[in-house]
């Protein structure tokens, strides 16, 4: 392949500018106040059921944002925390939030306080329930295990960026019979949550869940723009597949060969 393939071809300009246009168009229109639709993912019903069960049994809820710090994943976990706290505040159920990042800890405290105020029960906010345990992976995990067993929580919710400590938490949540719902974009941890939790929100659903709850314009617009981008990709693949199938059936039709060759040139195949 010649030097040319390390620079953008016309196909790149068309496809990438189309994708970039959709994403920026939707973000900017969302920021100008236009209402964008995001469907309610089934995981949120599982989350509400977990909170409901805790209020029935009158036992606290654990909300663990994993090792995420002050990044996109951590901030969206805070949007889900706010939803959980507001739901739990209606029935006076405690929400315990163990954190592994000192900066996210301050954000979590603010989020919890605002949520209780929004529900009109500021006195329910207990600073003791928002705890910074440790920034060391396994030290944080063993701290959370201590909380699970001491508080005998009814529901354990894991939302954020997780590494291998997901195993320790899921095992101990299972031992105390808690209903467990997890959500993480970290694909390598999703199988372990799937195998041990009652419901798991997987991959991009994590961003959809927090966008649905927080209605944050940049995130909403980005998700809707990305959906349109995926439709473009599916369209390209469908066209290519039809062209190659037709070429395979009628191999010596002139224009079909040219079409498939151009496609193969712009979408290189081994």
């Amino acid at each position, binding site marked *: 392949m010649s030097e040319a393939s390390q620079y*953008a071809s016309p196909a*790149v300009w068309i496809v990438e500018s189309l994708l970039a246009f959709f994403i*920026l168009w939707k973000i900017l229109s969302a920021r100008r106040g236009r209402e964008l639709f995001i469907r309610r993912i089934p995981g949120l019903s599982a989350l509400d059921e977990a909170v409901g069960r805790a209020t029935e049994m009158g036992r606290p809820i654990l909300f663990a944002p994993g090792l995420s710090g002050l*990044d996109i994943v951590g901030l969206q976990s805070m949007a889900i925390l706010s939803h959980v706290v507001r739901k739990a505040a209606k029935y006076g159920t405690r929400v315990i939030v163990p954190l592994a990042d000192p900066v996210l800890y301050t954000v979590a405290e603010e989020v919890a306080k605002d949520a209780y105020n929004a529900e009109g029960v500021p006195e329910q906010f207990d600073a003791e329930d928002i705890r910074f345990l440790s920034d060391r992976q396994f030290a944080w995990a063993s701290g959370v295990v201590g909380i699970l067993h001491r508080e005998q929580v009814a529901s354990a919710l894991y939302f954020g960026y997780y590494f291998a400590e997901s195993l320790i938490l899921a095992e101990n949540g*299972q031992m105390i019979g808690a209903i467990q719902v997890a959500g993480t974009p970290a694909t390598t941890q999703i199988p372990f949550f*799937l195998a041990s939790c009652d419901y798991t929100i997987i991959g991009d659903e994590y961003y959809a869940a927090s966008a649905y709850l927080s209605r944050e314009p940049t995130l909403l617009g980005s998700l809707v723009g*990305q959906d349109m*981008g995926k439709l473009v990709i599916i369209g390209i693949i469908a066209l290519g597949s039809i062209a190659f199938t037709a070429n395979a059936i009628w191999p010596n039709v002139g224009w079909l060969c040219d079409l498939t060759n151009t496609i193969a040139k712009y979408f290189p195949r081994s």
Partner: protein
Amino acid sequence: MISFWHWISAPRHGWQLTAFIFGALAIGCGVLALLASTTPRYRKTLVAAVTFLAGLYYAIEFLIPPSLWPLDPPRNPFSEVQPLVGTLTQIIWSFALFLGVWNLFLIHGRAVAKRSRGWYNSAAFFISFFAIMGAGLLKDYAHGPVAKVSQSVFTILFSGFLTSLDATMFSLIAFYIVSAAYRAFRVKSLEAGLMMAAAGIIMLALVPVGAEITNWLPSTGFLSALRVERMGYWLLTSPNMAAQRAIAFGIAVGGLAMGLRIWLSLERGNFFDRQL
């Protein structure tokens, strides 16, 4: 203009070199002082401008091929300076490697100073930090018996303690998998059952014993498809490949969206602005 450039880029020696270095540092500090004095209103635009221009470099380097540049012979000048950009970013980036050390010194320094609970662990942190750093530097720069002792101390600290501590810490996860396998992995739904079945077949197909288990099946013909390594390998190369590609396309578009949001500083109203 060219001669000024030659004058600037010519290497210096002796006292001239020292003067030029301190001159450069002085100019640098001046720019930093200027930066420090900018009013908060311009700070956000300055950071957004720096981010945009930095992104523009690699965008143009890719998006505009040589044929479109009005240069003879046709070339993309941004690609020509790639090696220099590579080296520059490498050096500036390596200055950031001491950030973590600074943070650790703050935490453990405070623990030792206040004699808080477990302060001796923080003391052990400092001792091992300076022991291995000292042994490393001494074995390179000292001579005679000092170099020899520090070489053996370095070997003991590095291939003795450090590599074993790192490897053992990482291997703890295997134990958590074993206890989770017995006490946490519960098939509570059909989909979890499907995942565990696929995982089981693939786990057996990857290891040599998988081939032994179904070795009694014929190796050709229809029945051969039921051999563990065949089933596992088909799962990996067909359904798993398609599912991973579907996830990859989601990451592709997500990466483009994330890149645009960072490049154009569209992340408003949260942690990006907290320090501005």
